[in-house]
């Protein structure tokens, strides 16, 4: 009896310790992350970031007053709390104490003032400036208290402070010419070097203000634009994690049992769009745009490009989101197309051009094929983005296939694209509608959520009718990691550093 009892106790103890060891993150090690692009980042100045990849990487180094949690809620970060005045025009932030920059100096309120003034300085050319122009002044009340005075109430304000885009940086990290070549921040990793077109390296910040993390000693971000190369690198162990696993391989990979890596496929936030040049004929004609809208079979587009792993949606908001709009989706209706074409003045169809950058070509090929059936003959032109972007800014095209992603605040989603002075207005083909402009301005200052939603519902209805661009389908978000990589998580837009997750909480066995 005691013999068995002793055996039981020993096994229990062993299992207990084994579980404890397995669940305990192992400190140290180097992780290589494969980025699906030729350049891992567009630049290293957090205030001048463009694109999500750049945000993912620089958020390891630089942080803002607030951050996201895994469900994309705004949570306190470098600001441990805040108060908003009743009129919505004053935001008082209380900062975390004893947070140090990578150069050893403590972060104080003066650094917050400096950072935001830099963002607002036109000379910096920050993409956030337009969103933060609402700031009238910034006051330093004491070392850990700072107040932002806004020109009017501005509901999306906190979302525009989140992440590396609104990074709090030390003045000394800015070069004499006003640019940043070596970013310094408060983040879990310290910037080491960026070897353009080769890789970017960061190393552990041992004095990070959140204790216990990060676990890894070093992270290297490698550019792997070619799909096949990316997957091979993962298989051979040349990289530890990749994102954007080629969709065409998902059917096969998800069925394979003995992969050497873990695969995660989740609903993604990246979507593809068809942009009309609304400023020039023929697509300045709403009926023609609507004709194209009804000519497309979005289900087929999604199947062709994501092999069933994507989704057809008519908005970025998920159903459980507060901002979800109930408008019904548009289905293919070739009879309606014929009618609209006739009303638009093209009873025998029309010849147009369809331009696209190489990465989105498969989408454009299917669009071209579908439009052909509706008597809209699109000639395909494949141009790389460096040449296509100026064409778009010049409004020198008919249609372009492109894409976009997630926006946490409806002002970001609708304001950026549909306001005639929005920074992404050229992605709506130069759409300009005074009524929409007025509604967007109203939406920014309205503080009551239900009233805000009503405003954006009106905007959505107008856009649904006038279709300056078309939402085609959503892509899945995919990651694949070697089996010895543990603790890795992302938000639904693929963020790699957020509250409680991302690369700072990842370790290697």
């Amino acid at each position, binding site marked *: 009896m005691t013999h068995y009892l002793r055996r039981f106790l020993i096994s229990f103890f062993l299992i207990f310790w084994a579980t404890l060891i397995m669940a305990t993150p192992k400190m140290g090690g180097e992780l290589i992350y494969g980025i699906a692009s030729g350049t891992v980042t567009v630049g290293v100045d957090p205030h001048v970031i463009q694109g999500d990849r750049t945000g993912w990487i620089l958020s390891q180094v630089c942080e803002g007053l607030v951050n996201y949690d895994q469900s994309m809620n705004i949570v306190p970060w470098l600001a441990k709390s805040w108060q908003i005045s009743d009129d919505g025009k004053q935001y008082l932030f209380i900062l975390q104490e004893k947070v140090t920059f990578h150069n050893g100096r403590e972060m104080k309120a003066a650094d917050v003032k400096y950072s935001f003034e830099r963002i607002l300085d036109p000379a910096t050319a920050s993409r956030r400036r337009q969103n933060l122009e609402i700031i009238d002044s910034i006051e330093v009340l004491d070392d850990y208290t700072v107040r932002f005075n806004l020109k009017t109430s501005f509901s999306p304000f906190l979302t525009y402070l989140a992440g590396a885009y609104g990074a709090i940086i030390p003045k000394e990290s800015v070069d004499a010419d006003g640019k940043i070549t070596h970013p310094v921040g408060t983040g879990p990793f310290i910037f080491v070097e960026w070897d353009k077109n080769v890789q970017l390296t960061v190393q552990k910040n041992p004095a990070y203000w959140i204790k216990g993390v990060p676990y890894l000693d070093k992270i290297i971000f490698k550019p792997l634009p070619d799909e096949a190369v990316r997957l091979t690198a993962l298989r051979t162990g040349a990289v530890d994690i990749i994102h954007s696993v080629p969709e065409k391989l998902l059917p096969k990979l998800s069925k394979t049992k003995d992969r050497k890596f873990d695969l995660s496929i989740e609903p993604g936030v990246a979507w593809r769009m068809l942009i009309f040049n609304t400023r020039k004929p023929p697509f300045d004609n709403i009926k023609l745009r609507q004709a194209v809208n009804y000519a497309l079979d979005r289900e087929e587009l999604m199947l062709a490009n994501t092999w069933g792993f994507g989704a057809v949606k008519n908005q970025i908001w998920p159903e459980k989101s507060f901002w979800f709009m109930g408008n019904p989706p548009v289905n293919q209706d070739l009879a309606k197309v014929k009618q609209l074409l006739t009303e638009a003045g093209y009873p025998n169809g029309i010849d147009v051009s369809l331009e696209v950058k190489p990465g989105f*070509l*498969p989408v454009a*090929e*299917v669009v071209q094929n579908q439009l052909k059936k509706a008597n809209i003959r699109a000639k*395909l032109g*494949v141009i790389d983005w460096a040449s296509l972007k100026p064409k778009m800014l010049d409004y020198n095209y008919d249609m372009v296939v492109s894409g976009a992603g997630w926006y946490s605040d409806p002002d970001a989603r609708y304001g950026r694209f549909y306001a005639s002075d929005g920074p992404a207005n050229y992605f709506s083909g130069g759409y300009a509608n005074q009524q929409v402009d007025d509604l967007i301005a109203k939406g920014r200052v309205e503080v009551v959520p239900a009233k805000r939603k009503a405003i954006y519902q009106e905007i959505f209805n107008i856009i649904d009718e006038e279709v300056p661009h078309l939402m085609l389908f959503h892509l899945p978000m995919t990651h694949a990691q070697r089996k010895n990589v543990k603790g890795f998580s992302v938000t639904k837009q693929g963020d790699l550093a957020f509250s409680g997750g991302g690369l700072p909480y990842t370790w290697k066995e």
Partner: protein
Amino acid sequence: MQINAEWSRFFRRFRHRHLAVIGLILVVMVLLFAILPPMVLPFDPNEMDIRNAMATPSGDHWLGTDQYGRDTLTRLAYGARISLKVGLMATGIALFIGVVVGSAAGYVGQKTDTVIMRFLDALMAFPGILLAIALVGVLGPGLLSLIVAIGIVSIPRFARLTRASVLQKKNLEYVLAARALGRPGWQILLSDVLPNCLSPLIVQITLTLPGAILGEAALSFLGLGTPPPAPSWGRMLNEARGFMEISPEQAVFPGLAIFIVVLGFNLLGDGLRDVLDPKLK
């Protein structure tokens, strides 16, 4: 009478070169494949059927379907037309310009000869594909640009061949006699000199043609050829590359097609050269 005897001798010698016969058979097969199936097959080469993408070969689709559900056999057949069109027209351009330039260099001689030949040397020194890419970059992608680019790259060989033959013949008695009689140079070239250069030219045609077809495939592979959805073999090969893990046969078929065409013309060309060569003196 004399011609008939020559021809029958030619055919007999040709028949005995088995590889050449195989080459001829392959070439004829490709020609038939380019001409017949588009008239016979039910599918449109650009007709998509997304829900039937990457289908394995079956009764409905003999060679399966590509990533958009388009019938591969039909696309290969239409692709053959593109390959042959580019091949023939590019070779035609190279032939015409090459012969004119080469005979001018050979017949006129001296400074003209030197200038032309050094220019052609420079042209030949460039790796053909790079030059073709540069030319397409300037002219913009499309069928015509391909034909012109590949044609230009192929000129030097025809020019040199023609020049060599003209040099051989121009000091023969009947040519000197014609010159003495005051006949203009180009007339002499056309009626007396060039007809005797035909043999090497024919051989060169059958050797340049596969090179041109290969060039078209290479440029289309790189994305410089006719824009989608044109079923160029090179483009089909490039697109199939991404799907090798799932449907490797989609990469094999266009690759095999290119291989067969190039092999066929090469064997034919080699055989013709062997048969016609001893007749050159």
